[in-house]
């Protein structure tokens, strides 16, 4: 391509504009911009609370790797915003589920991420209508077929529960039976040894890997020990160093708590 001599002043003027631009607005100094999309918490060090900007935006603070996923270069929050003081419209979920990020943020870049929060929690969006979710008791239950990517990332991403378990906030109360096919009751998606969370002051606690198909959550606040066993075979052993606390050979049951309101004998079963 042949360049016309008339193009030279154009190049110079563009260069000049570029030079002037540095004077017209503040340069990025000190704080590096970090890209976000969607509502998310603000770190306490930055004032705390919630950022309500729904579209793409920037801050000068970092996003953590547990509560955020990459959405085409933007950090997208997959946690529960209510835990951080979110006061907008909210939707209750129970257990793990996909998040169709492109639907939530309203762009054309398909992106399915997964929420690994155990038990009842909130998001600021409802899932799109379709067969992969069932609504029971005003809560969304994921009953779809999780893909391999969900299973593979699960050991690492389950760490998000260590963030939320100690947080005191108004969680949704879900007291209904989970629908058939709910992911939380499917043994094949329970990770054998990973997903073990040991909280509490006794950092020396050791969790012995249980048999296949067993998920263990051990919370060891002194002086007592509480062990939640998800599902699997006998042989779950939790050893804790001095003083030794051993929980062993307990039958494991999938427990879905159901609140039963007594009707004082008015139903047929008592006649």
């Amino acid at each position, binding site marked *: 391509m042949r360049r016309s001599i008339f193009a030279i002043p154009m190049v110079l003027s563009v260069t000049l504009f570029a030079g002037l631009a540095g004077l017209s607005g503040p340069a990025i100094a000190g704080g590096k911009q970090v890209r976000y999309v969607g509502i998310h918490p603000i770190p306490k060090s930055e004032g705390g609370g919630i950022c309500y*900007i729904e579209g793409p935006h920037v801050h000068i603070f970092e996003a953590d790797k547990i509560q955020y996923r990459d959405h085409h270069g933007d950090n997208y929050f997959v946690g529960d915003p209510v835990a951080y003081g979110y006061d907008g419209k909210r939707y209750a979920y129970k257990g793990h589920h996909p998040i169709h990020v492109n639907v939530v943020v309203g762009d054309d870049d398909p992106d399915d991420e997964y929420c690994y929060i155990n038990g009842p929690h909130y998001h600021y969006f409802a899932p799109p209508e379709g067969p992969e979710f069932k609504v029971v008791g005003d809560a969304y239950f994921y009953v779809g077929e999780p893909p391999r990517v969900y299973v593979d990332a699960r050991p690492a991403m389950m760490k998000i529960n260590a963030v939320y378990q100690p947080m005191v906030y108004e969680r949704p109360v879900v007291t209904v039976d989970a629908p058939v096919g709910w992911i939380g009751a499917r043994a094949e998606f329970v990770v054998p040894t990973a997903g073990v969370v040991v909280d509490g002051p006794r950092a020396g606690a050791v969790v012995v890997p249980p048999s296949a198909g067993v998920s263990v959550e051990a919370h060891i606040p002194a002086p007592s020990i509480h062990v939640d066993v998800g599902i699997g075979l006998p042989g779950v052993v939790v050893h804790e160093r001095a003083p030794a606390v051993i929980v062993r050979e307990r039958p494991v049951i999938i427990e879905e708590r159901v609140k039963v309101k007594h009707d004082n004998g008015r139903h047929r079963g008592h006649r």
Partner: protein
Amino acid sequence: MLLVAACGKGGDKAAGSAGARDAVLDAWKAEKLAPSALTPATVTFGKDCQSGTIEGIDVLLCNFASPAEAKAAADQGLAWVGAATGVSQAHGAALVVLADRRKTDPSGRTINRLMKLAPK
């Protein structure tokens, strides 16, 4: 003759693109959000830009010949935001850039409202 033609073309462009910025400003004003008087701003990514403040937030509005050009400049608009919370998005042929340099909008609610009001 060439000069006249060039001027005429430029004038048409200015008239057409001014509408994009005006549409954004009108949408804000319709919701009782009062921007300060905007003054010409010199930036590398747009030739017809004006800056000012609205609700304590710095604003830069640039006109482009087409929505595609405005969209292409969105990333560069973040340079104008600098070390602050901010946004840079195309709305039609206008590029809307907001920067909360004085931290008057810590929750981002005002920025979110401004961006939602700006016509697509």
